[in-house]
């Protein structure tokens, strides 16, 4: 194996019946030197934060609605005031741009911007859309997945850590079953 190959990262997925086993796998992976964003828990159901001893995900989702609201307001002002100035409406000496009559539209524009940016923020912070990583349909049936990104040379360590925590199966990135570490040459 070349040095370049041994530096390449590969994803492994351990599948567990019980949350306790998945939490144990996370501890063992940490003990083996894996950490940070290398370890991911995958489940079909949200579990309480910290249930698996995983690190809290940092995000900036709360900034998105504010940015969206500002953009929405700007677009609503430009569109509405632009329309009032552009269309040759007879106003009978009253102001061409009438704020009380457009404040509703400005409000809706602001809220629409906030919602749209929030949705974009949700997708961005969830890292979606995503070409699906290592995954197994049995997760939908209730198994809990612990995925770990490991350099090629550290794959055996990761596999051992996953197996020692009572993994039902350990899968490769392509979904194929890994041979048990003890049986490997």
């Amino acid at each position, binding site marked *: 194996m070349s040095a370049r190959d041994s530096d390449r990262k590969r994803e492994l997925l351990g599948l567990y019946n019980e949350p306790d086993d998945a939490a144990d796998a996370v501890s063992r992976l940490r003990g083996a030197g894996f950490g940070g964003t290398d370890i991911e828990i995958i489940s*079909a159901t949200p579990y309480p934060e910290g249930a698996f001893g995983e690190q809290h995900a940092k995000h900036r989702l709360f900034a998105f609605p504010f940015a969206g609201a500002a953009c929405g307001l700007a677009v609503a002002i430009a569109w509405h005031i632009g329309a009032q100035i552009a269309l040759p409406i007879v106003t009978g000496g009253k102001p061409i741009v009438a704020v009380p009559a457009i404040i509703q539209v400005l409000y*809706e524009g602001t809220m629409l911007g906030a919602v749209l940016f929030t949705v974009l923020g949700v997708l961005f912070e969830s890292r979606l859309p995503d070409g699906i990583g290592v995954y197994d*349909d049995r*997760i939908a049936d*209730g198994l809990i997945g612990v995925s770990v990104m490991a350099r090629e040379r550290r794959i055996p360590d990761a596999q051992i850590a996953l197996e020692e925590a009572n993994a039902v199966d350990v899968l490769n990135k392509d979904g194929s079953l890994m041979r048990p570490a003890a049986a490997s040459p």
Partner: protein
Amino acid sequence: MQEPVTVDRETANRELLDFVFAWPKWFFATTGLLGAVITLGLIIFLLLMIFGLQLFGYAHPVYWGFPVVNFVFWIGVSHAGIMVSAILRLAQAEWRRPVTRAAEVLTIFSLMTAMTFPIIHSGRPWRTLYWEFPYDWMRGIWPNPRSPLVWDPAAIFTYLTSTVMFVYIALLPDLALARDRVKNPIGKAVYGVLSLGFRGTTRQWRIQAIAGILLSALILPIFVSVHSIVSWDFAVTIIPGWHNTVFAPYFVIGAVHSGVSAVVTVMIIMRYAFGLKNFITKDHIDSLARLLIIVATVWLFFFMLDFMFGLYGTEPAEVDTWQRRLMEPPWTAIAIIFIITGYIIPVGAWLFRRVRRNFFLMFVTTILVNIGMWLERYMIVIPGLERKSNLTFQYGDYLPSAAEFGIIAAQLALVIAGFLVFSKLLPIMPAADIKEGQILRDEIKVGRARVPATMREA
């Protein structure tokens, strides 16, 4: 909760996706029937475009009839759906879990239906587009961008877009579940694309939880603004009976009353039609009925305010309108039916626990509410217009035509068909949310009683 949802994960997966993957015979029969009614509506719409508004029972000075009444009614129904969902999410009410999706979907289809009514009402749909987007620059005729009629499309477009986004984001985990469970390769590909590769990582679940709360918080002010703006279509005019400052909250609370009732009706139908007896329990309708008692009473208060403000100024036109609404046939009969069906029977019945926990009686009473609320909108819209003023030389009574009844039936069929098709293609209950409830559910012993103890995410 006295009777919490208790199903294992396998049963939840199977039962919640059962209707999505199965093709029961009644589905084809029902969609066929609904399709026929919708086709009838389309034929009437086509005739309307050819022959114009003479097909409707308009008579000078009444040119706002069934289409406007139905516009207000369906906007109202659309409101409570998202309100129920958003408030329950924000309050982290545990019993919300099976309720939210159906409420949100009801919002989408009733809102889409409501949007068709101003187009029908115009009689010339292509002109509606021109009024909003004056594309024909050469004619030199300009719509007024300051008109309240511009507020409506802005508000409804914002509300519909937000609701669709809200539902889609909440659907992502269930789309992923459908992707994993479906056997058909085309279905797998479609659900795969729609789920955007959602896997259920801790990060994705965390963002899902926050998104639900954040979007709920953003949608609630939109929900209030939309029906306020709909009420201003009336309140900013000088028509007697319409020109009233109390209209915005009156319309909003009326919308909540009819909408929450519609949610209960839909949930009871879903319970039997989709085999969701394990998920929609007596506790759900009981909780919603208790909410409805409060909402209905607040709505009655606003109705009384509207009445009192109409009489308090002793302005002849206002007093005449109220006299017409309450003391002249056929309005007296309509007023009595609307008060009895909109408040007296349902609220009187909901005071009894046995009624609140009885699916049949709740179904009947919530249908009654919507009959009453429809009549309320009819009473608001028509009598104010029917008044003969100084310059009214031609005068006739508005009598809804068969074409208008046909349009109403078609629009009702459209909402039901939309809901049914959505339920056929996508999970109508948030499976992940329900399963989360099962994980977090626990019971503690207090003396000799066992009571639910639920941990909630902050």
